[in-house]
């Protein structure tokens, strides 16, 4: 793939790439900008190569995620999978309009699978590729994340209705 085609491809995915970088960085906009810059740098320096143009979005999301993990580790904000607890109890109050806050209540892997499927319209298979996990594992994260997110949304809606 020549440089011009690669530039066009990156440009066409730029908005979504930034939003995904932000989601991978715990919705930290400034860190997301740095992550995106580093991602583009890796690509332009040839450190990350796209072999199959049909998988451009999956490829880009995967680089962004790994770059975000590195950057979060550097700033000491990385929560390892072992430390990312399964949500047992729902919080006392959940604000329905605090979308990011609600998503952050899910464990990291569940957050990312749910965001990729519902926000970025990727399939579970593509999400598994981005996260470099088995399809079965991705399906488990998807099912658990969806169940918990539904509980959180319903709780927030109930609170909103009671508050009126």
């Amino acid at each position, binding site marked *: 793939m020549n440089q011009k085609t690669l530039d066009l491809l990156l440009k066409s995915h*730029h*908005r979504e790439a930034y939003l995904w970088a*932000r989601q991978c960085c715990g919705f930290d906009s400034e860190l997301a900008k740095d992550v*995106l810059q580093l991602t583009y740098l890796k690509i332009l320096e040839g450190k990350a190569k796209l072999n199959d143009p049909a998988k451009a979005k999956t490829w880009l999301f995967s680089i962004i995620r790994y770059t975000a993990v590195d950057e979060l580790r550097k700033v000491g904000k990385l929560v390892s999978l072992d430390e990312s607890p399964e949500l047992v109890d729902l919080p006392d109050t959940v604000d329905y309009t605090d*979308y990011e806050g609600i998503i952050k209540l899910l464990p990291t892997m569940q957050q990312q699978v749910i965001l990729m499927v519902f*926000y970025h319209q990727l399939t579970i298979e593509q999400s598994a590729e981005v996260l470099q996990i088995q399809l079965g594992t991705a399906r488990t994260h998807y099912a658990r994340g*969806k169940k918990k997110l539904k509980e959180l*949304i*319903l709780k927030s809606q109930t609170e909103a209705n009671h508050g009126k």
Partner: protein
Amino acid sequence: MENDELIESFFEEMKANDQNLEIPPFPEKQPKKINWIIPIGIAASLLLAGFLFYEKAPEPEVPAEVIIITLEEGPNQEQQFKITESTYLDTWESSTSSLLTEF
């Protein structure tokens, strides 16, 4: 599928909310600018060096004077050489011209 509708609706609202987010501009590549100061500086240095170290071709030195040697007859009928110096030659006579006239 009610679950999915609820979640889809949640994400639609989230996306609408994200429309207000400021997206950083895509980093455009800057065209390479030629810094003309460097080549101009090099050219100027070369010119100056050429001017300072240029040596003129040595011009042939003009002889300071002409030595004229003439053979004259002295008062006692003897032949003697007369040597004179001059910066120029008024007339020139071939040393063998007498052969043409006196022979």
